[in-house]
């Protein structure tokens, strides 16, 4: 790896200081004079027609300043695509999931707003509901959206090669049913926003959004204002993980509308219960997977039939179902593939995106099925992965899958080797196997995830680098750091490209009035796309500095070097001056100059056809191999996960601390969704709507984690980088379930694998009680 001054170094996070001091401000921390509080009134039925709303009593309550209902939004709806814009800010003619918002109140304090919500009288005609996607598919089921009378929100049928022929010629074929759990993003900071609608026709908002520019477009469309009059000032964000904070929620629209009505700033903060009952969840999917192999364990074909539980509205569903299918042709060579997928409307909270979007479901099914086939064929589980793994393409070449996804680097084999050589796997037979009632198991997985997401539509981004006259640097982009550390990486990229010191870079908070558009944090795109934009902007600014130095020294600009905060003629390195001095020369020469660099990402586009499944939505793909060691208490079914080793091919780790932290956090999130998290639903009602009952791991539940960087130096990423945010949430569930199989001999196909499921399975095998 090249010697860089800043890239690859373990610098402190650029925002660490304000966070540890409690000075970082999140949306709920903002206040304005005369501010009102907003509460959303919610429907008590999962499926009902709204006959009448009487807000008069609420309006008369002292302290209430304004009330809005669905009608106030004039029939406006929004969605991920124009053809699926089926969601209103507040329900208008009917509600489609329990607690969907029907009205909102602005009052002098939260208690008054809550009390007013209870005084709003809504007449409903309760409708029969449907809660299971396979039920919703059946004829005669209640229709949730008139424009989709069969309740099918999204439907794809893809075919590559000839799976029927391939299965017929396979040595062995397996068919299994897998199911992923009903889970949610689990961020600690609930959605919140402070909004002010200026009567002269502009909106200013401080919302917790990891995609502030989607929200700014939503507001412009909803309130019929030009984009230049919508100002999103982004606070720090307390966790994103996709879904809710990439989108808008009822509260967001209500506070703006209430501000418009009352002339005052209005703020909402969702309590955690509202988050767990109404915010976007990860889709839960049923996967009927069929996989064929030759006698040597080589994949011949996969046919996946996937049913997604969509909830009450479409949201980003079409992309989810595309991603759930497109990744099956990687990271193992697959010559024949058939994908049939349906996303069903049900009367449940809306399912949307979450970290590992789409891939987590089908990579889980395929990785486990490979393990099952390996067992049947008597082939070592590592061996079978290595036989099928896609090789790292040679420099200048790329690998193309049968559905037209291409990539130039693939470190899967190196990653698998790394975890296999690591002590967790290598010494697994010398470690304790039993300890009292506990049996230990070690499992392995090899998976992939998309990075640098780019699709048709405004997905591109830009950056501006401004050299201050004292040599410090302002980095201005629309890119959002929702906690993953992208601000740090962008600042490092700017410093490296400019030749300035990391400490002298100041990255500014997103403010749509001043920062260039960026779609936000999702699809692991910020480091890649905004990173490239930053690189180009820094180069542009640097050119101006090089020109200034060249003029000052009477040499050609190509002969000037700027590095680590110093500038010098290459031929005379001891004639160096500080970056600060160079900035002064550039800025104060003659009448002065403003050194401003701009750049935008120019990766371009490979069109995706959702209907046929062809095309490539990613700039590059990461590859992760993982081992998991755990202990199963054979009496209680309780699982103690003790160790993870994660080998992640993220191209090049630009900020090793963040890469490790993302892998660690993603893995624990994956562990959580594989063994703890599940919403207990009953006819649309969420039984476990507190953090106590919706279990997510604490410090005592998470294992010791080791992260190994696999370096493939991708030609498409800035400084060789690929994604390093989502790989480990895809790799953890199959490795964990593989470890459970090692400990119990049982393959678990339904997530989460709870103690009850383990005991039940042991009992069925006559092994419980012990």
């Amino acid at each position, binding site marked *: 790896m090249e010697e860089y001054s800043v890239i690859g170094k373990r610098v402190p996070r650029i925002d660490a200081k304000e*966070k*540890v001091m409690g000075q970082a401000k999140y949306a709920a921390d903002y206040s304005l004079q005369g501010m009102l509080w907003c509460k959303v009134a919610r429907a008590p039925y999962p499926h009902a027609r709204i006959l009448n709303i009487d807000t008069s009593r609420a309006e008369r309550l002292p302290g209430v300043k304004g009330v809005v209902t669905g009608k106030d939004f004039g029939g406006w709806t929004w969605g991920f695509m124009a053809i699926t814009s089926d969601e209103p800010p507040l329900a208008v003619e009917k509600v489609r999931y329990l607690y969907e918002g029907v009205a909102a109140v602005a009052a002098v304090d939260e208690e008054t707003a809550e009390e007013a919500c209870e005084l709003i009288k809504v007449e409903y005609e309760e409708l029969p509901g449907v809660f299971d996607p396979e039920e919703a598919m059946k004829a005669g089921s209640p229709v949730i959206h008139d424009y989709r009378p069969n309740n099918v929100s999204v439907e794809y049928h893809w075919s590559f090669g000839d799976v029927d022929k391939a299965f017929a010629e396979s040595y062995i074929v397996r068919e299994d049913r897998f199911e992923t759990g009903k889970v949610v993003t*689990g961020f*600690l900071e609930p959605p919140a926003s402070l909004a002010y609608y200026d009567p002269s026709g502009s909106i200013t908002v401080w919302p917790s959004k990891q995609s502030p520019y989607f929200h700014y477009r939503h507001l412009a469309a909803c309130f019929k204002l030009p984009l230049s009059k919508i100002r999103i000032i982004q606070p720090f964000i307390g966790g994103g993980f996709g879904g809710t904070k990439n989108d808008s929620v009822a509260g967001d629209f209500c506070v703006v509308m209430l501000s418009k009505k009352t002339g005052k700033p209005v703020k909402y903060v969702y309590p955690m219960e509202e988050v767990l009952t109404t915010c976007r969840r990860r889709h839960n999917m049923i996967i009927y997977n069929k996989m064929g192999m030759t006698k040597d364990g080589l994949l011949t074909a996969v046919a996946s039939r996937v049913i997604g539980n969509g909830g009450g509205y479409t949201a980003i569903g079409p992309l989810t179902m595309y991603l759930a299918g497109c990744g099956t042709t990687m990271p193992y060579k697959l010559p024949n593939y058939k994908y049939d997928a349906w996303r069903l409307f049900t009367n449940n909270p809306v399912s949307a995106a979450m970290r590992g979007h789409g891939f987590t479901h089908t990579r889980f099914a395929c990785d486990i099925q490979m393990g099952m086939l390996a067992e049947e064929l008597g082939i070592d589980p590592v061996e079978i992965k290595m036989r099928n793994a896609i090789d790292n393409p040679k420099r200048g070449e790329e690998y193309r899958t049968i559905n037209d996804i291409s990539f130039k680097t693939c470190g899967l084999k190196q990653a698998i080797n790394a975890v296999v050589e690591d002590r967790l796997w290598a010494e697994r037979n010398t470690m304790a196997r039993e300890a009292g009632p506990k049996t230990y198991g070690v499992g392995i997985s090899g998976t992939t995830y998309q990075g640098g997401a780019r699709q048709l539509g405004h997905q591109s981004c830009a950056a501006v680098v401004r050299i201050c006259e004292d040599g410090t640097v302002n980095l201005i982009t629309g890119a959002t750091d929702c*906690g993953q550390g992208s601000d740090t990486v962008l600042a490092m990229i700017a410093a490296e490209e400019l030749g300035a010191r990391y400490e002298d870079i100041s990255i500014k908070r997103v403010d749509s009035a001043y920062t260039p558009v960026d779609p936000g944090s999702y699809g692991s795109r910020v480091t890649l796309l905004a990173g490239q934009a930053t690189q180009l902007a820094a180069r542009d600014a640097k050119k101006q500095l090089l020109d200034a130095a060249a003029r000052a020294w009477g040499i050609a600009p190509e002969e000037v070097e700027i590095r680590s905060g110093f500038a010098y003629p290459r031929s005379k390195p001891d004639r160096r001056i500080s970056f600060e001095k160079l900035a002064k020369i550039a800025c104060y020469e003659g009448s002065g100059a403003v050194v401003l660099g701009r750049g935008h990402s120019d990766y371009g586009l490979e069109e995706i056809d959702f209907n046929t499944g062809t095309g490539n939505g990613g700039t590059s793909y990461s590859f992760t191999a993982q081992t998991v060691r755990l202990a199963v208490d054979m009496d209680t079914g309780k699982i103690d996960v003790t160790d993870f080793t994660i080998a992640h091919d993220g191209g090049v780790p630009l900020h090793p601390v963040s890469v490790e*932290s993302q892998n*660690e956090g993603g893995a624990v999130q994956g562990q959580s969704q594989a063994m703890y998290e599940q919403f207990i639903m009953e006819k649309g009602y969420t039984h476990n709507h507190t953090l106590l009952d919706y279990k997510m791991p604490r*410090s005592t539940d998470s294992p010791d984690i080791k992260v190994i960087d696999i370096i493939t130096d991708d030609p498409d990423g800035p400084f060789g980088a690929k994604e390093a945010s989502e790989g480990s949430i895809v790799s953890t569930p199959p490795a964990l379930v593989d470890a459970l199989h090692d400990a119990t001999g049982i393959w678990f196909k339904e997530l989460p694998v709870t103690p009850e499921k383990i005991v039940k399975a042991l009992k069925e095998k006559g092994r419980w009680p012990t």
Partner: protein
Amino acid sequence: MTMEEIRITVNGKKEELHVKPWATLLDALREELGLTGTKEGCGLGECGACTVLMAGMPVNACLVLAMEANGKHIVTIEGLAKGDGLHPLQQAFVDIGGLQCGFCTPGMILSAYALLHENPDPTDEEIRKGLEGNFCRCTGYTKIIESVRVAAGRMKG
């Protein structure tokens, strides 16, 4: 409804506040004193984001009535740093990278502070146990444990 008067010392400073009888210490700190470093995650005492020290003990400020805090010494995250310098715990979190989104961080650091006060030389197991009441969704806890371990080492001198 009458407002109640309370006198609390926050980060060494004496404060006289008028609060609603049902206001929590969290409300008082954030709304009355503008100390927004202490966060509300769940409002039910299940996540630890609102951890502050009351009479030296780590408490969930959302479960303490403001009136209950009357006469007590409260330390919030804003009160940990002295002057321009950071407390060794804060510095360790910065150096090791024991945070991502930072929302759990104030509560986490204060819980760690209380832990190290009681047990200046904890094992990793004891650190995990000591922070069990503070939920983090971002980091997977690994670098948090490391930060506390490093801080403990530095504080022992």
